[in-house]
């Protein structure tokens, strides 16, 4: 009898293609939306976590002035070469101390030009930021001391200026300075803030100060801690040393700030977690709307179904047989919609994660939850109106308008 019931249910589904389609659609939208949204949210979080790892481990970022609204590092006294020398010799827990000064320049090669960021620094920059060269070499000791016009360029700059041509050994113009390309940086891609980290030219600090900036200001210091050293200890060392060097009396506020990039990372991760939660909530609403859709279709079709139930009861079907048929119908539709919804959700998530370059992180619990919820709604609203109808006197069911 079970196979007969299954057959009856499938026949009933096939005989009402529109109703079946709408029911399945509700489930597909609900399940698909939740799976797609949550998977994209999880991918974003994973991407941010991976970016943070790429930022360089144990990285501390120092700049003049305090972070925060209404404060500008421009007003505070910049660092100087002696500060850097002191940090390099006295910070025993640091692996690399890289001074940096930056500005925006126009880089030109042949007929190609690009506005990009230029950083004046030394070789510790690559260590601190954990940034490899794909070709060429880093700066020579003599180049750093003498301030030679040598530069190392990021992937975006290389692509814009040189395209498929060989970049190494060529000379580019940076503002009015002619500069030899001695190295190419590995591509880092976009940062979590959406900026292109490969849009950069790096040159020796002294060259930058003399020929680009025209001053000896150092506006940032990148410091990475040695392996196994707590960044908090290095941060305390930096603060003590810089307070001393900048003559800040006891009780007075720092006129510089030290940021542990790990903390920034944690803030960012927390933000993306909230974002995932938000996407999940939006998806939850889709699920609810899908559920209401299923509910509506099921309730609207009850008039027609009630007559059908009346007919079946009058010609000798037992209440339990009619109910079993309706239950099987609801289960078949829910399963069908659920499977399509899962495939659609995963498909959309796969496309979207590829499009915005984030990893595809699947959470099986979400797949299960979305499916279970939709199936439950489908079954409940397919079954309970049918149960009410099946308990009617067959004659009343037949007269149902």
């Amino acid at each position, binding site marked *: *009898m079970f196979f*007969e019931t299954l057959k*009856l249910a499938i*026949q009933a589904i096939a*005989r*009402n293609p529109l109703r079946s389609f709408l029911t399945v659609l509700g489930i597909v939208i609900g399940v698909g939306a939740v799976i797609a949204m949550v998977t994209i949210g999880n991918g974003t979080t994973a991407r941010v976590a991976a970016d943070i790892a790429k930022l360089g481990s144990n990285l501390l970022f120092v700049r003049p002035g305090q972070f925060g609204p209404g404060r500008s590092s421009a007003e505070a006294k910049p660092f100087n070469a002696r500060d850097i020398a002191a940090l390099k010799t006295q910070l025993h827990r640091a692996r690399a101390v890289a001074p940096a000064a930056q500005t925006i320049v126009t880089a030109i090669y042949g007929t190609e030009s690009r506005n990009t960021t230029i950083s004046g620094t030394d070789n510790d920059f690559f260590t601190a930021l954990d940034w490899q060269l794909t070709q060429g070499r880093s700066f020579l000791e003599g180049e750093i001391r003498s301030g030679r016009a040598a530069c190392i360029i990021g992937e975006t700059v290389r692509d814009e200026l040189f395209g498929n041509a060989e970049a190494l050994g060529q000379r580019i113009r940076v503002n009015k300075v002619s500069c030899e390309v001695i190295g190419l940086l590995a591509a880092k891609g976009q940062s979590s803030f959406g900026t292109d980290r490969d849009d950069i030219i790096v040159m020796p600090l002294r060259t930058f100060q003399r020929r680009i900036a025209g001053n000896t200001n150092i506006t940032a210091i990148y410091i990475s801690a040695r392996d196994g050293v707590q960044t908090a200890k290095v941060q305390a060392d930096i603060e003590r040393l810089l307070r001393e060097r900048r003559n800040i009396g006891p009780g007075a506020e720092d006129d510089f700030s030290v940021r542990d990039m790990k903390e920034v990372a944690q803030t960012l991760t927390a933000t993306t977690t909230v974002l995932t939660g938000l996407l999940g909530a939006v998806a939850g609403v889709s699920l609810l709307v899908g559920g209401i859709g299923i509910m509506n279709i099921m309730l609207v079709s009850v008039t*027609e179904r009630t*007559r*059908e139930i*009346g*007919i*079946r*009861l*009058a*010609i*000798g*079907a*037992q*209440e*339990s*047989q009619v109910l079993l048929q309706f239950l099987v119908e609801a289960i078949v539709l829910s399963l069908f919609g659920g499977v399509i919804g899962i495939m659609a959700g995963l498909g959309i998530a796969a496309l979207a994660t590829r499009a915005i370059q984030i990893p595809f992180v699947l959470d099986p619990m979400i797949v299960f939850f979305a499916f279970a919820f939709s199936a439950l709604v489908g079954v409940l609203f397919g079954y309970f109106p049918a149960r009410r109808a099946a308990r009617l*006197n*067959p*004659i009343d069911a*037949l007269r149902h308008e």
Partner: protein
Amino acid sequence: MHSPADKSPALIELKAVSKIYGAGMAEVRALDSVDLSIDDGEFVAIMGPSGSGKSTAMNMLGCLDRPSSGRYLFKGVDVGALSRNQRALLRRHYLGFVFQGFNLLARTSAVENVELPLIYRGIAAAPRRRQAMKALAHVGLAGREHHSPGELSGGQQQRVAIARAIATRPAVLLADEPTGNLDTKTSLEIMELLERLNRDEGLTVIMVTHEAEMAAYAGRIIHFLDGRIDHDATNRDAA
């Protein structure tokens, strides 16, 4: 099914059956202590104005409803004592229904509609299809088996309904205003079909109608009035 070993000679027997709806002042006696006996092979027409109790009597005879008091014996079995499921089984095995509004499943072919009661009887697919085709041929619908109700005229739909009712070879065919939705010419054709089934195959037919012209086909006409049998007579004009 038409076992001669039955103790009760009558196929259907109502003994002081009442059906009361509501309670107290709002009490309505749809049937008021009705005694009625119908034998195997009869063709009975039940007539009466609306509210006379004829539809209630029909529901009672069709085991769709239970008496408030009195006893309804079908083949000697007290229907009032049966559960909902047992009454469903009784309908499945002994009764066939034809309704005024045809009540076919929409978007379902004629032969699938006729197969429906056979499915509930647990008949396998192949013999079920054969039996359904035979029943359709019997009501003059050979060649229309795969049309859905929407593609058939009212008269043809009612023939499908009759085929559905007789496909299980029931003991009794209950027809509730079977010609109520049909024009006169088609109505007469349906009546001739019912009469033929009664005469040639000994099928017991009980039909509710308010048209004397249709009742004239029956061998016995029962008039209801205010929940009681007003008049019960053999129809001498019937063939």
